[in-house]
């Protein structure tokens, strides 16, 4: 056996996908299955005066029509939100609070009949004035939530840091910048929509839920809490998931209605959302309106950071944040810089928009924070007339300061920010680019170079701080080694393309000296996998990855006893070296893990339990802090506002790299989403609360034509507390890249005096900014 970690092993999950043999939710077809389709509100805010089901019920094939009133009678109308501070309507009851809100469900013998009958459910509405803007919500002239006390649209105030010291430092700073920086509402839009097949078996009393789920165990617990069905009677299976990006973390009304229908009717019920349902009702992201202030000395040493945020949470506070972190890890807003003083606050408001606030390819609210600080640093550099690279270099947390206690309460694990930035500048040829830019500026050409030296925090998280539904955010692994030395590895995570079936086998293979090709990885089935909190917030490698390594080490401890027995030496004389058990001082005497595995079943030592299996629940001692330097080079067409991304370089540091090919793939994908957020993706509402981006012809996803070519490289600074030193990577490119693109465009427009444009930087917005400036 040789090394497994650090090897670009081809993915073990691919053979089924390239043959079209993946098994996604909508591929599941059970005998006698019925189909659910949902009725949606055309109004963002309206009283429901009446619902007439009769015409829909008369359609041949329609089995039931369920309304909010029906659910209320069954005490299933309200769904708790994950942090436990709010509840969410399953079907609109009394009034609707956002356009496209689910009002009724039709259950029928086919998808087509169900959708036909949806058109025949007659709902009489009395439209009410909507509140679309969170700043309008703040005024409390229209109260959206009749069901809550006190009567206000204000959901919570959260703050961290030293308010007074920060105010004093800002007031006495020689240089200050202040800007409202918006991270607009967008949507992860995985290509596979969300869905469920709920199958209540009345004979066994068991409810099987096939769900597009990033967190199957949490969903099992949530369904048990909502329905009162004991958890042993609920079996959640998350089949192959066609992308998640946070969209498949929450519980949606369609899941609940399909489940209720299956429990009542006693046959399987399938619900798969349409793309329009996906974009209008489920898991939006961002919608943070951040007032960013930075103070500095004239020489460019930062003195203080203050960020005051208005958060638009939509109609319910359904953001799946940990309980003690209503604004997630927004405190990472000091980024890679050593601020002597900092203060951040978030005020969240209800509006007539769908709920969500999910962590779209990022840890909770980290993308918003990272965007704020990286844009803020560029604005400060502009004010100081300093190169943004130089400003960053002067203010980086230094290598020798780690572990670093940030003024907003995080303990950064490790990093060498200056070295990573230096590597990126060398690769891109920064000085030559600046020279080229200076020449182009003389000719009136708009070329920009944008930099982002971000730090994010992922891997939620330590149980003393982080929980979902009260459940601590550990993760778990279970390993069974078979007599012939192959094995099965199960984890509490659920991949959606991240490659766990390969990388988990590599971690265990490395620890045990076994071939990853002979280690089957299984996730997503709550009957077989150990309890875990799931895959989102880049937590799989930092948390479950730790559990896997430590479970494997437990196996190795037992294997060592067996090895001593086989080698006929004392256990203390056995050493693990070169992926096998040897005897100290006797180089040619050894046994392999395969031999030990066979002995575990056929010839265990007399005092040792037979078999070779274990599990491990890993509660991480800290979060991890991946970081990187990203550089974008753009050319802007002054006549059309078109932006051409000429080059994009990402130099990441995610600690130990398990599979370089997969890490690079994750970075490519995240950069494409960062590009999308910077230039294209936005869920916009008009002043009446109408969603203007209800399908892929209006909500624009970049194609291969617009998407730039990516250049990648890395530095490796292992996390000191993680069992294998890995930090997680899937979200760094999405967290770190939007500001590199925006900074590049703003740098290109600098000669015109343009300082800030809110994302997405559409051709029209850029063109208008150029026109208004010149």
């Amino acid at each position, binding site marked *: 056996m040789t090394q497994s970690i650090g090897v670009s092993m081809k993915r073990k999950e691919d053979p089924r996908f390239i*043959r079209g043999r993946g098994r996604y939710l909508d591929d599941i077809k059970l005998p006698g299955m019925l189909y659910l389709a949902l009725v949606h509100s055309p109004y963002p805010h309206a009283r429901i005066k009446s619902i007439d089901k009769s015409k829909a019920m008369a359609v041949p094939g329609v089995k039931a029509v369920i309304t909010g009133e029906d659910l209320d009678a069954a005490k299933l109308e309200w769904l708790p939100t994950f942090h436990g501070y709010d509840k969410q309507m399953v079907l609109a009851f009394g009034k609707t609070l956002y356009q496209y809100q689910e009002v009724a469900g039709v259950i029928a013998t086919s998808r087509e009949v169900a959708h036909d009958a949806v058109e025949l459910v007659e709902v009489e509405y009395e439209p009410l004035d909507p509140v679309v803007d969170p700043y309008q919500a703040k005024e409390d002239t229209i109260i959206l939530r009749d069901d809550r006390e006190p009567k206000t649209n204000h959901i919570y105030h959260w703050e961290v840091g030293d308010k007074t010291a920060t105010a004093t430092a800002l007031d006495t700073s020689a240089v200050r910048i202040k800007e409202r920086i918006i991270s607009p509402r967008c949507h992860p839009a995985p290509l596979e929509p969300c869905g469920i097949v709920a199958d209540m078996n009345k004979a066994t009393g068991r409810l099987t839920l096939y769900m597009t789920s990033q967190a199957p165990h949490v969903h099992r617990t949530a369904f048990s809490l909502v329905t009162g069905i004991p958890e042993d009677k609920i079996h959640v299976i998350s089949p192959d998931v066609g992308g998640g990006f946070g969209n498949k973390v929450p519980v949606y009304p369609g899941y609940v209605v399909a489940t209720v229908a299956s429990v009542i009717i006693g046959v399987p019920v399938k619900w798969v959302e349409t793309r329009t349902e996906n974009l209008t009702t489920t898991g939006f992201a961002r919608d943070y309106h951040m007032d960013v202030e930075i103070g500095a000395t004239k020489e460019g040493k930062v003195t203080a950071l203050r960020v005051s945020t208005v958060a638009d949470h939509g109609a319910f506070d359904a953001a799946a944040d940990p309980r003690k972190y209503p604004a997630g890890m927004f405190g990472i807003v000091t980024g890679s810089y050593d601020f002597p003083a900092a203060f951040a606050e978030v005020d969240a408001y209800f509006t007539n928009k769908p709920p969500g606030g999910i962590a779209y390819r990022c840890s909770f609210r980290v993308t918003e924070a990272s965007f704020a600080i990286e844009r803020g640093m560029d604005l400060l550099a502009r004010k100081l007339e300093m190169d943004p690279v130089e400003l960053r270099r002067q203010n980086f947390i230094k290598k020798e300061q780690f572990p670093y206690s940030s003024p907003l309460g995080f303990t950064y694990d490790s990093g060498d920010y200056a070295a990573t930035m230096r590597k990126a500048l060398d690769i891109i040829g920064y000085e030559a680019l600046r020279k080229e830019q200076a020449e182009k500026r003389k000719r009136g050409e708009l070329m920009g170079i944008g930099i982002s030296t971000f730090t994010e925090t992922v891997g939620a998280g330590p149980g003393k701080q982080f929980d979902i539904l009260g459940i601590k955010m550990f993760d778990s692994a279970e390993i069974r080694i078979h007599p012939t030395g192959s094995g099965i590895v199960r984890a509490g995570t659920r991949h959606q393309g991240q490659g766990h079936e390969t990388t988990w086998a590599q971690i265990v293979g490395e620890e045990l000296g076994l071939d990853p090709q002979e280690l089957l990885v299984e996730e997503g089935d709550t009957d077989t996998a150990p309890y875990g909190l799931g895959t989102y917030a880049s937590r799989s490698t930092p948390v479950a990855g730790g559990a896997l390594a430590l479970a494997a080490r437990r196996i190795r401890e037992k294997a060592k006893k067996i090895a001593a027995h086989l080698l006929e030496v004392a256990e203390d004389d056995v050493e693990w070296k070169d992926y096998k058990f040897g005897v100290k001082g006797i180089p040619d005497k050894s046994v392999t893990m395969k031999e030990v595995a066979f002995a575990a079943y056929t010839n265990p030592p007399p005092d040792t339990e037979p078999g070779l299996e274990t599990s491990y629940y890993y509660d991480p001692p800290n979060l991890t802090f991946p970081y990187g330097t990203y550089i974008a080079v753009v050319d802007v067409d002054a006549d059309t506002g078109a932006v051409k991304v000429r080059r994009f370089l990402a130099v990441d540091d995610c600690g130990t790299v398990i599979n370089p090919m997969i890490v690079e793939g994750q970075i490519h994908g995240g950069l494409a989403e960062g590009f999308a957020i910077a230039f294209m993706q936005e869920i916009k509402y008009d002043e009446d609360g109408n969603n203007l981006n209800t399908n892929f012809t209006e909500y624009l996803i970049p194609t291969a034509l617009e998407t730039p070519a990516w250049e990648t490289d890395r530095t490796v600074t292992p996390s000191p507390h993680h069992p294998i030193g890995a930090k997680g990577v899937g979200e760094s490119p999405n967290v770190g890249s939007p500001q590199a693109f925006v900074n590049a465009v703003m740098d290109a427009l600098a000669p015109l005096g343009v300082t800030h444009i809110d994302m997405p930087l559409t051709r029209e917005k850029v063109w208008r900014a150029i026109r208004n400036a010149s």
Partner: protein
Amino acid sequence: MKINVTVNGTRYDRDVEPRMLLAYFLREELGLTGTHVGCDSSSCGCCVVALDGDRAVKSCTMFAVQANGHEITTVEGLEEGGKLHPLQQAFWDQHGLQCGYCTPGMLMTAYVMLKHKPKPSEAEIREAISGNLCRCTGYQNIVKAVQQAANELTAEPAAAAVGS
């Protein structure tokens, strides 16, 4: 309506509702679930199949009855005699997929393109797959995979015959 459609070399005679989309005919009538549906508006390309071997069509935008008398190739029809098509092999080799949901449509689009343009440039590949969205890969490795397959198909006459 009665139709006969040849899918991956097998002829099927079926009676379908006129409004049934080809995508659902393949998935639900024939059980060929490799063809996916992702957007309902002909934007994402997860449902692309080959019509008569030389046209890439979005099967969510075509009725099953329109396929009457035609030959359809789906992702399940790419592998021959237990040997992966060079495109399938290349997607695996080059890490051209992550969640796998867009993969069948990407493969079928590339399969048809390579028939018309056996030696495409990078720009031509990007243009050809611009009707297929991918949220995971950032496209770069998909482009590399199509280049690998194109090289293999043009270098080896035997392999090229498989795709013709």
